[in-house]
């Protein structure tokens, strides 16, 4: 990881040097202007990529930040005589704040709804700025102190300034990519509920991403105003501005810091060259040629040029992404009490969906160190119970205490932070990450730094016996391996309690035995296990205690041998055949 990051830092440095050399070589003010625009649009596209490329929250509205930055610099200079040297940093602050203001309500939406809502912000701002009377604003020419107001006769100065912003944007992107920030965003992109359940505070990371993204976009918009000298709502809040970073990033490759740069380097000069060459000959044809070129290239490289080139030329990544140093044994952080205290206590839990009472006055006690099973027919409310415990759902009634702490009302990542891990009925893997990365995402909660997180992840993989698959992509795993990986992700931050939701479902007989051993071992290591299961036989062999749910009510609780003899349970859930077998066995 270290060496890769260092190498990419060198690449950034090399790119900066090359751009500087190019700007020295080209003498035409026109090419210098185009080069400046390439760099500025690359910064906007990188800003977009930090939010949308990594987290998957597509923004059709980055013109909002760009335009606010541009107007901050322009109006600051006109009204307050504020130099762009201060105006551009201020534009970054304004962009960041706008990110917070926009993100706060908009992150309630997901997918297409988020994208469309984002589209509305720049369009609304466009009208607001028109209404405010800022339809054409021009940065005053400062003949007395041009340098103080960033007004250079030599266009190369703007190239250098824009290059400075690009280096900042690349450095920020690199830092994001190589830290838990980027990992958290990638996890959100691939499976947000799983990320939340694995202890990632998805809200906080998304807010950070949009603020950072807004700040970078605002900063670039500020310099854009200085370069263009005339700001109109259409030129900074228009649809074309919002579309530009998307097009550049999709073309170059989303989710990687070089994608937006490649997109800008190819497409911005291409469009401008077409305008220059064809604009006066066959007006309008430049747009057609530009569109066709993009379509053809995207047909050839659907995920963007960068990924295509990487797949073709880069060696497949054989070594694990993260350093392969020997894993020191992870010390258990908290001493386990030997006596069996009540660890998880549910009192009077109820929740309704419309008219359906999914859980009704459920009392449940899980004792520290036990292996507790929950059974019940389909629709009994088992998974709902887990969702209430881990914070996906807020109960209408009742309270949940964990180790004496109140758990009710906490968000999933906060529940996870308090020491409850969970798996899902349908495995929620981050399929485009390696097994190790999947587990590292889970480990962040319990780790102070990224290095510790990796060590904890390796330890967790060891515990479930999946260490040899650490470097495999999660997308290619078998069901058994996926179940184990998810278990490792839940175990990585050393929780006191894990909730296993039908971990045994869909497994063959041979695989089953292996997983049961792992679960038993986990319990022996001191972790309390609460497991939902259908496979009765396996459960009887596995658990210390049973709770039986039916129609949202807890109808019985006790040791397995008691439960299998309980008439209510047999009638409600297990059926006559089971009762016969039990009777026979007793006889």
């Amino acid at each position, binding site marked *: 990881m270290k060496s890769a990051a260092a190498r990419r830092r060198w690449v950034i440095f090399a790119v900066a040097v090359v751009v500087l050399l190019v700007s020295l070589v080209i003498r*035409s*003010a*026109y*090419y210098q*202007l*185009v080069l400046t*625009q390439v760099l500025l649009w690359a910064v906007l596209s990188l800003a977009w990529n930090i939010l949308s490329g990594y987290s998957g929250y597509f923004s059709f509205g980055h013109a909002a930040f760009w335009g606010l930055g541009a107007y901050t610099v322009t109006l600051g200079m006109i009204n307050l005589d504020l130099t762009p040297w201060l105006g551009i940093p201020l534009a970054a602050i304004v962009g960041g704040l706008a990110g917070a203001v926009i993100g706060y309500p908009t992150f309630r939406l997901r997918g297409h709804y988020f994208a469309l809502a984002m589209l509305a912000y720049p369009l609304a701002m466009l009208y607001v700025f*028109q*209404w405010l*009377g800022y*339809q*054409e604003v*021009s940065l*005053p*020419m400062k003949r007395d102190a041009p340098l103080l107001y960033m007004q250079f*006769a030599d266009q190369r100065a703007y190239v250098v300034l824009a290059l400075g912003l690009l280096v900042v944007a690349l450095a920020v992107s690199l830092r994001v990519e190589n830290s838990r920030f980027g990992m958290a965003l990638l996890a959100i992109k691939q499976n947000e509920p799983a990320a939340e359940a694995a202890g990632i505070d998805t809200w906080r990371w998304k807010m950070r991403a949009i603020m950072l993204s807004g700040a970078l976009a605002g900063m670039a918009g500020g310099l854009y105003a200085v370069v*263009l*000298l*005339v700001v*109109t709502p*259409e*030129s900074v809040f*228009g649809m*074309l501005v919002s579309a530009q970073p998307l097009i550049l990033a999709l073309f170059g490759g989303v989710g990687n810091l070089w994608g937006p740069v490649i997109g800008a380097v*190819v497409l911005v*000069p*291409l469009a*401008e*060259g*077409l*305008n*220059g*060459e*064809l*604009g*006066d000959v066959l*007006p*309008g044809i*430049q*747009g057609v*040629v*530009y569109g*066709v*070129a993009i379509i*053809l*290239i995207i*047909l*050839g*490289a659907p995920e963007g040029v960068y990924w295509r080139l990487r797949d073709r030329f880069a060696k497949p990544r054989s070594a694990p992404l993260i350093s392969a140093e020997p894993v020191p044994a992870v010390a258990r952080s908290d001493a386990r009490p030997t006596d069996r205290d009540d660890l998880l206590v549910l009192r009077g839990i109820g929740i309704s969906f419309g008219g359906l009472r999914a859980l009704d006055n459920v009392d449940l006690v899980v004792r520290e160190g036990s292996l507790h099973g929950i059974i019940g027919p389909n629709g009994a409310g088992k998974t709902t119970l887990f969702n209430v415990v881990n914070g996906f759902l807020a109960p209408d009634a009742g309270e949940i205490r964990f180790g004496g702490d109140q758990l009710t009302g906490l968000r999933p990542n906060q529940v996870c932070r308090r020491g409850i891990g969970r798996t899902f009925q349908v495995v929620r893997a981050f399929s485009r990450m390696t097994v190790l990365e999947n587990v590292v995402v889970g480990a962040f909660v319990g780790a102070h730094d990224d290095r510790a997180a990796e060590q904890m992840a390796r330890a967790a993989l060891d515990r479930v016996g999946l260490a040899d698959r650490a470097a495999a992509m999660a997308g290619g795993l078998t069901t058994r391996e996926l179940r184990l990986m998810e278990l490792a992700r839940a175990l990585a931050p050393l929780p006191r309690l894990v909730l296993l939701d039908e971990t045994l479902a869909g497994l063959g007989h041979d695989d089953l035995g292996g997983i049961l051993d792992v679960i038993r071992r986990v319990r022996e290591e001191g972790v309390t296990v609460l497991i939902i299961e259908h496979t009765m036989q396996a459960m009887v062999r596995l658990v210390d205690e049973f709770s039986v749910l039916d129609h949202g009510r807890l109808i019985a609780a006790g040791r397995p041998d008691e439960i299998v003899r309980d008439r209510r349970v047999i009638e409600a859930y297990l059926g006559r055949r089971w009762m016969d077998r039990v009777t026979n066995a007793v006889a």
Partner: protein
Amino acid sequence: MRRRPTRREFGAGLALAGMAGLRWRPAIAQTNEVRVAMIAPLSGPWARQGQLMRMGADMAIEEINEKGGIKALGGAKLTLVVADAGDSTEKAKNAAQRLLAQDPDLVGGTGAWLSSFTLAVTEVTERAQLPMLTLSYSDLITGRGFKYVFQTSPTAGHQAAETLPTAMQLAETATGKRPKTIGILMDNTAAPMSFAKPLRDGGLEKLGLKLVVDQVFTPPLSDATPLIEKVRSSRPDFLLLLLSAMPDNKLVLEKLDEFKLSKGRLPLVGNGSPLGTPELKSIIGADLLEGLLFSVADWPFKGDEEMVERFKKRTGEPWMTQDGLSAYGDMWILKEAIERAGAADRIKVADAIRAMNLTAGPAALSFPGPIRFDENGRRQDVPMIFAQWQNGVPVTVFPAELALAKPYWLKES
């Protein structure tokens, strides 16, 4: 499988071809040629206006060269270099920068129709000391203290201030009576709002006009009935229409017709050359436009008949609008300035424009009033022209010395 590389190669080839398009175009500096520029939107939403400008400029260049080119430079030919300002200020600015980089011998130019484009373009030309003529009328263009921009249109502020007094004069000339009441029907977009603000802030009182109906709406208009009902019941002497969108114009004019207020029965006054385009006629119809008066910075007037005929024959356009006329005149102003400068030198050409006071010749015949600029590059002593739709054609009707037809204020039918 075999087709995919081909497609990729084709795509990559296209991209390369596009980039190769950025080749350095060497300036062809011939001694018997003087180069001037036109930067106008030739693609995008304003392409039509740019095309009209190009028609006017092309015609002027041809005439100048047929008549012997620049005499002061031994009959050097005038060459027009055209750049597409596209659909954004960024593209307009790039076009200006590109022209200047590729054509270091340019001595002057015209552009860029839309005032925000002109603002961006002149930021570049000012620094390169290239004299630019423009028909854009935003006050800001000549309000920045620039030395190399020359605005042939009266500024927006001037037009707003002069439109109503001129309309009152027109009414008095046509009917012998001064109107006493006015109605205003407008949308709340920027241009109408800034046009109407000084009127509401005491401007109307000064003119002795009583505002009897004042309707402001947010475009787009879905139904004009309530607006026009109020206009009908309050019966102003005339109605000031400040609408920026074509569909709203159509709705309002149709509704006025339905309420029997059209065709000169209620005098309608507007502002701006968009109210006189052939497109407006094809969309709204000559019938509904009949009688509509609009103030405009430049419109063919008395003395231009022969030139307009040449333009119509050459281009097939039904009449000449401000776009073509101004671009035609700009070329003649540049020609005149080069003659006076006696050199293909942009600074000397700019000086010559600043010093000129033309009252005769093709340049002077392309603009109302003398060709004389103040230190900011604004023209002085420019009368406000009014054109009126008469029998399907917008013709200049005021002031009388420039009029091609008599105006009518009220038409009884």
